[in-house]
Each structure stands twice: as C-alpha cells, then as structure tokens.
C-alpha cells in the first residue's frame, strides 16, 4: 500500500482517459491501474480456460439437454423431451440412480468412519507409524484400472485367494463377489472403501487430530474422563469441521463412482453395478446420444448441488468451529 501511494505523485494527475480505465479495473492511481492490468495478464490463462472449458461447456451442455444431438450434424431442439424420457421413459434411469445412492449410503460411512479409525490408531504415537501410514496409503495410489483388475482376481469365485481363505475357515459356500448379481454392488463398494480408507481422507483426519490441543485432553483427565469420554467429548467435537469437509468430499466422490465398476464389471452382472455415471457414459459415448447424456449430467449436477447445499445448511447444527 505504501508503494502504491508513493506511485501516485510520480504519475501526476490522471487524465480523463486514464481515469476511465482506472475505474474499469477498480484502481485510483496510474500505478494501481498498471498493476491491476498486470494482474489481468497473469490471470489470463485461467480466465481463458474458464471460458473455454467451463463457462462455454456449461452453457452448451445446458442447451444440449433440450436437444437431440449425435456429434455429426447440429443439435435439434426437442424441448423437455430428454427430461421427460429420463424421468418416465428410461427403464435404467431410476434403478441406476437408486444404485448410486445405495453405493453412497454404504461407501460414505465405511470410508469416512474407517479413515477416522485409522487416523486415531496412527495418532497413538506408536513405533513404526510412518511405515503403517505409507502402507495404508498405497492402495489409494493404485491406478483405478489396476485396482479393479487385481480385485477381480482376488475375488474370483473359484480360484481367488479370498474365497480360498473363506473355505479354509469353514464357509463352504462363499459368495460369488463381482461375478454374482447379489453381491456385485457390495463388492464394488468394498473395493472402493479399501482404496479410499487410508488415502487423503485419513491424512486430513490425522492433521485434524494433531490440531486438537493437548490441554483439552489433560483437562478431561483431571475431570476423571476415560478414553471413551475423551473421544466423545474432546476429539469428536473438535474434529467436526474435518469430518464435515471429508463427508462433503466423500458424497461428491461417491455420486460420481465410475472407473472401478466400469473395469471390474462393465455395469453387470445384469445391471447390478450400472451406476448413474456409467449410464451417462453409455448414453453419451457409446450410443452418442449427446443431448440425452447432457440432460442426465444435469440431473447428476442438480443432485450434487442439492446435497452440498443441504450439508452446508445443516452443518451449523453439528459442526463446531473454535472461536467462531
């Protein structure tokens, strides 16, 4: 700010043309104007990127949602027919949406809760914490395709080691996992939980745990609180902002589930893992119904925006912010 003020007299009284430009960029002196212009220059790549890859596509996809469009040729306006078809004429629409919610309902508590448990274990200052942390994190690093492939083999009904282990402990008829209609959805959930539990979510919890002041634990000890009381009345309340952040991210991630299901089961057997993101992919990029695919994408966007809004709205009831 000091520099900005010394810059003013040097430039002299701004003429009317410069002041118009100054007003336009929200500056008062020629120095500030010049600086503001440089600001735009450095932001230019992203402004361009926002227009080309976000703004333009958002408007275009909203429009495509009301058209029939197959890449070749131009979009043909058909009004609400895509949305009507989605809600009442597409027999895969509601089941795939329901399946995605079932997945999210199983995935979020296990992934976020599991990550919290892992973080609490690692926060005990045990020997070898770094090694454990790395080992827990590695599944998160496996490219999703390799993840799906390796679990397909691990869960192979006959020759897979998981079922061999289950037979070894006396379960004579272990599940068919990914190959069976009844257990495919649960298997895909399990694979995703396995990969996500020790990942970023756990690291964020660890950081959150390290931010809980020791005095609070000491105070709880003096009051005679045991381990559970400390967890319930110190750790958990202090961690609510972190839990909130992780849950929001988990909801977004869960509703977009795609790769593991696509590689491991291709949506099958008999549509058991046909998630909503898969449905969009098939409509848009296999059948090239770009208009219908866009409409479906907007349904997903609306659901995501709604859930994020609900979470932010109701977070005040349970999220505790220190000093706020």
């Amino acid at each position, binding site marked *: 700010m*000091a*520099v900005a003020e010394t810059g003013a007299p040097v430039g002299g009284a701004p003429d009317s043309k410069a002041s118009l430009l100054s007003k336009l960029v*929200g*500056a008062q002196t020629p120095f500030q104007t010049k*600086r*503001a*212009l*440089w*600001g735009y220059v*450095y*932001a230019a*790549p*992203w402004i361009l*990127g*926002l227009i*080309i*890859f976000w703004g*333009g*596509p*958002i408007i275009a*996809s909203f429009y*495509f949602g009301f058209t029939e469009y197959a*890449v070749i040729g131009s979009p043909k306006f058909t009004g609400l027919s895509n949305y009507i078809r989605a809600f009442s004429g597409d027999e895969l629409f509601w089941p795939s949406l329901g399946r995605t919610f079932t997945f999210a309902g199983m995935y979020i508590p296990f992934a976020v809760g599991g990550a919290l448990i892992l973080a609490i*274990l690692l926060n005990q200052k*045990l020997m070898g914490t770094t090694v*454990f942390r790395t*080992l827990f994190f*590695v*599944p998160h*690093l496996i*490219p*999703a*395709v*390799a993840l799906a*492939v*390796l*679990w397909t*083999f*691990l869960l192979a009904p006959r*020759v897979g*080691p998981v079922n061999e282990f289950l037979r070894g402990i006396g379960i004579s008829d272990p599940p068919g996992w990914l190959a069976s209609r009844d257990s495919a959805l649960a298997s895909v959930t399990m694979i995703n939980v*396995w990969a996500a539990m020790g990942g970023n979510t756990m*690291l964020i919890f*660890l950081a*959150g745990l390290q931010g809980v002041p020791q005095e609070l634990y000491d105070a709880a000890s003096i009051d005679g609180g*045991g*381990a559970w009381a400390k967890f319930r009345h110190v750790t958990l309340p202090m961690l609510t902002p*972190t839990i909130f952040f992780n849950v929001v991210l988990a909801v*977004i991630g869960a509703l977009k589930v*795609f*790769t593991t299901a696509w*590689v491991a089961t291709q949506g099958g057997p008999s549509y058991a893992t046909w998630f909503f*993101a898969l449905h*969009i992919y098939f409509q*848009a*990029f296999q059948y090239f119904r770009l208009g219908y695919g866009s409409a479906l*994408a*907007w349904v*997903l*966007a609306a659901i995501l925006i709604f859930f994020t809004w609900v979470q932010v709205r109701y977070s005040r009831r349970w999220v505790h912010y220190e000093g706020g």
Partner: protein
Amino acid sequence: MTQDTLLQSGPVSPQRAMQLLNRGVTYLIIFVLCVLFGFPLFWTVMSSLKTIPEMFSFPPILVPSIPQWANYWTVLNIDYPVGQWFVNSVMIVILTTLGTLITASLVAYSLARFEYRGRDVLFMITLSTMMLPAQVTLIPQFVLFYRLGWINTHLPLWVPHWLGGGAFAIFLMRQFFLTLPRDLDEAALIDGAGYFRIFWSILMPLCKPVLATLAIITIIASWSDFLGPLIYLNTPEKFTVSVGLQFFNAVPEVGGEPMQHLLMAACVMSMVPIILMFFFGQRFFVQGIVMSGIKG
C-alpha cells in the same frame, strides 16, 4: 484411572498393566490392518511372477515355485503396444504437470498479489468449479475437441492443463503465496524489479516445497486418469497405461493363449512408478493434502 490406582505402588501397577494391554491391542489391530492392506498388493506381485497353470490352479498357490521374472519382459513384447502405452503416459504426464505448475502459479500470483476489479469473483468462481461434476462439461468438451479434429490425439488430455491447471492447483498455490511476506515484493519493486521478475526470481524459489506437492498430486492424477483417455483415444497405439490395461483386461485371449499372468505384470508396472514417487516425495505430498484440507 481413578485416584486409588494412581496412588498404588508396586512392580507393575494396574494402570501400567492397563496401558500395556492397550498398546498390545492397538498393535494387534494395526497388524490385522496391515494384512488387510498389504496382502492384495503382495498377492498381485506374486501373481505377476506365476505361470498360467499356477495362476489358475485350484486350490490357489500363494507363492510361485519358480518366479517368472521373464513375464515382465514378455509383456513388453506381445501383440499389444504395451511399451508404447508407457511412453504415451509419461509424455502426457510430463506435459500436464509442466502446464499445471507454470500456469497455476502465474494465476495464483495474480490472485494473491494484485488488486483488480473482479478478482474475488474470479476466485469464487474458481472454487465453485470444484463442486460441479466433470460429466456436465465433458460432453461439450468432447464436441469441441471433435470439431478441432483432436479426437484420437493426446491433445485433449494435456492442452487444457496449460490454461491455469484447474481450481485445486490454483487454490493450493494461492494459499501458499499468501503465506509469503509481501515486504519481499515491495522491496524488489522499489529496487526496480518488474512483476514477472518478482514472480520468477523472488517468489518461485520460495515455492519449491509447494511446487513439489503440486507436481506429485498432478502426476498421480494424470497417470491414473481413465475417463479422459477412454473417451478421446480409439486406437491401441495411442492408449495410455490406464486404458491399455483395460483393453488388455477386456480381451485377454485374442491369440487363444491366456495372458492373465502378463496382465498382472502390467498392473504391477503401472503401480510401481506412482508408488516410488510417493515414497520419495511423501513429505511434500502429505503437506499438500493437509494444507488443502485444513484451509478448505
């Protein structure tokens, strides 16, 4: 826990015993978890060293009798251009990461250090792009690249990253710039340095840790990306490792010969670079996640 136990003395107080028991139980849980997280990885590596009969033997064999290290050589010399997939992935990762590092830090510099009309709105819009599902923009982007004639080229996979590198990268860099004292810039400005010089010679050297973080996160995301290459690439020579593996997985017996052991070897090869990267850059990576998570 109570006053009485605290006052008690003896060779092993009940409290100490309780503590030891707690420790023991914690270690036991961690051991079980290590098996749960470690076994699938161990099993994958072992499978990649098996012969086909060993792979499908019933009951399953854990460790191959003679490790078939040749599998790793064979996989590079089969009908699929597996070596080419790795070259493609490496090229795309390098171009993506360079673009992200350079342009995201420039944009973040602008957001953190300059005052202009619309800056805060720009930042809010940037953050809100993180909430929107990729599916919404995917279809128009596909149309755009189709019109540009970029389908079945690598351009759609890396060119967009040269326009700001995405909201997360900009956000991370901006947060870091805000922690650097502004006196640095102003002193340099008085000494006659231009804005680009301040950015390049003064601020960037101080950003090395966060640049390392961003590089690692970008490399991991770009290497694992599946949806992008799946949509834009059609011919096997153009594939990246991710879609290549999927292709390999979907048609395992083209020549009539089962190749699942080679598929496992290819899987391991796709995992190793990323895991090594994580081992060496762990400190930076963890810092970055923590920074984005706590301030988010």
